[in-house]
């Protein structure tokens, strides 16, 4: 044996250190496999090298390269930094942004193998998913997001200059508290164009300035309790578009005492919430898709002799720790790992399409034996979200592999009940329940604005439709109601109503805030 081992010509890199040439070569090789062999379709890529410090920065502003300023980001930064410095938590290997060009951050201290993994995972896996999944196509505007963020950032900075930090913070706090209730869950007529948003903001402002006429101030106001006949309740609701589940939208459009800039801030936060909504709904699939992609690409590169055995082992080490699923009685268990289940389901789909068993033929008549595993996966990635994906593709084979079982926890019973296990009788039950665990519509409380009497005391009434008898967390609900009252300017009431019997289970109310406005 000689002391020097010759490096085979086909290797793209050797050793742990990376440089730009190697990244470029590796990128080209990955691109070749991803586009030609796997048939992926991606936005143009932009890869940005950052330091650990900058990675922490990016974390705290929910991964976005530009973000308006708010104390909550500072809070998250302080906590993440603390956890990182103390060694409680490592940093993510990458962050990827759903934009065009698709921006992936890679960290300088990663080894070349890690950079390869990250490029395959983020710049191709996530990127393909962002570009092709129907949820993202429908709800997000990858081309416009960076410009819009720029606009949002400078707009909010301007507001801070003009109206003071405190006033802006007050609106942002309230808007952030309602972020989960600030999304449209059903498609609108018009698709989203974030580029137009800036223009529309200007137009609204100009219109207001043009039509401003000071004379209106002098017109005598109608006597209190006016002589207008009060309309019927249903007519009133129809006029206001009630019931409305997008609380931010309703407040932006209808809250009587907000200033123009306050509405615009609500709008910005609402757009942020809407932008992230598909990501929340596709965590499992998105990670599954990216993990499957990097696994396939790295294996292919190894087979073609592009990466060394050592690099492959290093890759397998990180890959297996990413897709590790602790069992429920393990100390490390904290729910189902989306990387593990996502990756397993992708592999399973390929298996069913290419080498199905009889059971698979029975469960997936359309898919089994179809042959083109990659094609089946691309279909799945384009057309589903987590909930429907699990419902459609979770196979008995996988349920057995994960040894899944479902447990019912009824607060009235002294014990927990095992309802379904991974057997013939339990497959459908488990699949249904697991799908529901990924259903945001089910996970998030169903809260709607049901009524407001604009001519009367203007009390805003919200209903929470309680499913399975689980009420809202009281102290948080109270705090959010206070925020709503700050925006609305009048009394706000939240009623928790049973979805089954319409019985009122609990009421919360917050009185009108003393001072509102600027």
């Amino acid at each position, binding site marked *: 044996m000689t002391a020097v081992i010759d490096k085979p010509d086909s290797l793209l890199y050797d050793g742990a250190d990376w440089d*730009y040439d190697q990244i*470029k070569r590796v990128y080209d090789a990955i*691109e070749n496999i991803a586009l030609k062999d796997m048939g992926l379709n991606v936005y143009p890529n*932009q*890869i*940005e*090298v*950052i330091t650990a410090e900058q990675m922490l*920065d990016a974390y*705290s*502003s929910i991964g976005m390269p530009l973000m308006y*300023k708010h*104390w*909550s*980001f*500072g*809070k998250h*930064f*302080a906590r993440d930094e*603390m956890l990182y*410095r103390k060694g409680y938590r490592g940093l993510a290997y990458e962050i990827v942004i759903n934009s065009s060009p698709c921006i992936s*951050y890679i960290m*300088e201290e990663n080894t070349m193998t890690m950079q390869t993994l990250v490029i395959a995972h983020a*710049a191709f896996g996530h990127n393909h998913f962002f570009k092709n999944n129907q949820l993202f196509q429908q709800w997000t505007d990858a081309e416009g997001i960076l410009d819009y963020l720029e606009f949002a950032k400078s707009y909010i900075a301007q507001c801070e200059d003009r109206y003071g930090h405190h006033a802006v*913070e007050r609106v942002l706090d309230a808007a*952030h*508290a309602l972020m989960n*209730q600030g999304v449209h869950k059903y498609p609108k007529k018009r698709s989203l164009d974030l580029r137009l948003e800036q223009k529309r903001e200007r137009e609204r402002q100009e219109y207001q300035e043009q039509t401003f006429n000071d004379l209106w101030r002098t017109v005598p106001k109608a006597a209190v309790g006016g002589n207008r006949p009060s309309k019927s309740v249903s007519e009133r609701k129809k006029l206001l578009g009630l019931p409305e589940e997008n609380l931010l939208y309703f407040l932006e459009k209808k809250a009587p005492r907000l200033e123009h800039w306050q509405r615009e801030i609500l709008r910005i936060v609402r757009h942020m919430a809407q932008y992230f909504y598909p990501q929340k709904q596709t965590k499992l699939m998105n990670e599954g898709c990216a993990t499957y992609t990097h696994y396939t690409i790295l294996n292919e590169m190894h087979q073609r002799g592009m990466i060394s055995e050592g690099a492959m082992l290093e890759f397998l080490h990180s890959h297996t720790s990413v897709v590790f699923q602790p*069992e429920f*009685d393990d100390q490390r*268990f*904290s729910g*189902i790992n989306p990387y593990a289940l996502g990756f397993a389901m992708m592999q399973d789909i390929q298996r069913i399409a290419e080498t199905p068993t009889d059971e698979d033929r029975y469960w997936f008549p359309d898919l089994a034996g179809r042959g083109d595993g990659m094609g089946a996966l691309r279909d799945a990635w384009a057309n589903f979200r987590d909930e429907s994906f699990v419902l459609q593709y979770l196979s008995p084979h996988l349920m057995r592999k994960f040894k*899944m*079982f*479902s*447990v*019912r*926890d*009824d607060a009235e019973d*002294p*014990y*927990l*009940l*095992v*309802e*379904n*296990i991974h057997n013939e009788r*339990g497959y459908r039950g488990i699949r249904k*329940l697991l799908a529901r*665990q990924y259903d945001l519509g089910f996970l*998030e*409380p169903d809260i709607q604005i049901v009524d407001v009497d604009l001519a009367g005391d203007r009390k805003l009434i919200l209903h929470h439709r*309680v499913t399975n008898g*689980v009420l*809202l*967390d009281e*102290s*948080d609900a109270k705090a*959010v109601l206070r925020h709503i009252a700050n925006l609305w300017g009048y009394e706000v009431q939240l009623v928790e109503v049973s979805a089954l019997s319409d019985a009122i289970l609990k009421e919360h109310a917050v009185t009108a805030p003393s001072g509102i406005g600027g």
Partner: protein
Amino acid sequence: MNIIDRRLNPQGKSLANRQRFLRRAKEQVVKAVRDASGKRGIQDIENGEKVTISTGGVREPSFHRSGAGGVRDYVVPGNKEYVEGDTIARPEGGGGRGGNEGSPDGEGDDDFRFVLSREEFLDIFLEDLELPDLVKQKVKQTESHSLTRAGYSVTGSPANLNLVRTMRNSLSRRIALKRPKPADMLELEALLREAEDRGDDPETLREMRDQLERHYLRSKRIPFIDPIDVRYNRFETVPKPIAQAVMFCLMDVSGSMTEHMKDLAKRFFMLLFLFLKRRYRSVDIVFIRHTHEAKEVDEDTFFYSTETGGTVVSTALEEMQRIVKERYPENEWNIYAAQASDGDNMSSDNARSAALLRDGILPLCQYFAYIEVAAEHNMGLSALGRETELWRTYKTVQGPDLPIAMRRVRSRREIFPVFRDLFAREKAGA
């Protein structure tokens, strides 16, 4: 694909967010800092500090379901022995067995921990303390200069050439003098060539040639960039004023001063030093120790070596007066003095000390703080009203308009409150 190196981008992008966060959590952070400063030594007060605050003021509420009550279903992996219909005893700690239930950001009502940088810590630690009588912030020591932009000039070094200005001037001059554009001339040449090829009327050809010739001449006469266009960035050196202060530490080191007392004194001096450092760019310290005679010493000797001898306070005051005269002219320096003593003094010296202080020292000082340190177990004596020699002496000096303050300190715990008490910003808005 693009690869962009962002590593050299400005750091601390989240600094503005952090400031907003600290402002938001101010009340709690201040409390945490005060608590923390009680526990740690003054020596390491300059380091950063990990503080823990309750999540109260920085909670981010959202509508979410509570962790208890109702019916929930969980699907979990790793079944080993269960079959359907089995019952499992409810695990301790409520129904959170499904894992990620609870508050969405996984924090709950736990305390929130983070690290304050040294600057932030000191800012909060010394917040709303004010130096009394800052009127005499003398401006001197102009050895520091900085360059400031000061418009444009027509002369300068090539490195300072302002390209934008230069080109703007050049462009406007070219437009004003109607210098033919290169594009126009190319066009004219092309037209001429075409006309020649076509064999146009020689008269027109000649006219075109003449015109082209005129253009050439004109563009030669009117240069693209003329020296009168050139502009340079102009810089001016601006002297930077430095407010400077000197701090005199006077301490009795006679045998009656125990280690405990010296420790207390040291802590007080450190605090004062930190505080002055935040207010003045440069702070000098002078250590003067005294028994029956006074001497200027370095820091180590000051704190750690003991002397024997009697106690004559006036010697230290004289020494201070001498040093001020020699090195720190009072019209150029802000002078602060802190004296620590156990209160002993030779009786015969009292009158002299009082006179020195009143007529010699106080007129020089911005502020004179007298700290009387006492042994911890010695609590009863002064409480009974038996004042020490020095205390009584200085009390005669005290007057409403004089910059002197006197406090007693017995234990470490009292140091910071006393310090705050001395420097707390006047509420009445004096």
